[in-house]
């Protein structure tokens, strides 16, 4: 049973466009929501994270939007660049658990 549902599975965006990846969860005990970025041949690396007490967090071109009532959060990549082409994973954590629950991943391709 997938604790965090992620969509779309793949995404193609024109350079300069906005990339949007969505995630949804059911367990209201989750209290930390990171996004990881994985380039081919590399392990995932933390990109940005949010806690549910804020509705938005922005770091450079990357923004997490968080909707607590809808139990959804999304990653927006503004002015997408070919160098952003990677697989993105959302994840969720709850206190008392030993691990992060990862989404299934989104393969983003930004075309010049």
């Amino acid at each position, binding site marked *: 049973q*997938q604790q965090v549902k*992620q969509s779309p*599975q793949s995404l193609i965006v024109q350079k300069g466009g906005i990339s949007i990846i969505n995630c949804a969860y059911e367990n209201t005990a989750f209290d*930390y929501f*990171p996004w*990881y970025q994985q380039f081919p*041949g*590399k*392990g*995932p*690396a*933390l990109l940005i994270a949010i806690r549910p007490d804020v509705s938005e967090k922005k770091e450079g071109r990357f923004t997490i939007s968080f909707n607590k009532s809808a139990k959804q959060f999304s990653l927006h990549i503004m002015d997408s660049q070919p160098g952003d082409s990677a697989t993105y*994973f959302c994840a969720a*954590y709850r206190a008392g*658990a*030993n*691990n*992060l629950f*990862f*989404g*299934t*991943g989104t393969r983003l391709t930004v075309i010049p």
Partner: protein
Amino acid sequence: DVKVTQSSRYLVKRTGEKVFLECVQDMDHENMFWYRQDPGLGLRLIYFSYDVKMKEKGDIPEGYSVSREKKERFSLILESASTNQTSMYLCASSLQGRPQETQYFGPGTRLLVL
């Protein structure tokens, strides 16, 4: 800079073989993790360790075991490899008490079981 290294980038093994995947981290992290990554399934936790000689099962421990004799090293063992264990295996580490905080991943080992 945290570094997590994995002993092999690619491995080819035969069904029934015993397989060892090694992971070493150099940042004195207490927590270490083994995941497998499969297309469409994301990252699934196999085992987790929060201290030397301590281990906990993750979501998919069947067919695997682990060993943590030293703080910096966490080994994943496939007792008798099967074709359905063909996958990408990722090791990660993080600070104690905050497994939800930044996990640092190694580059992965792509295992093919024939």
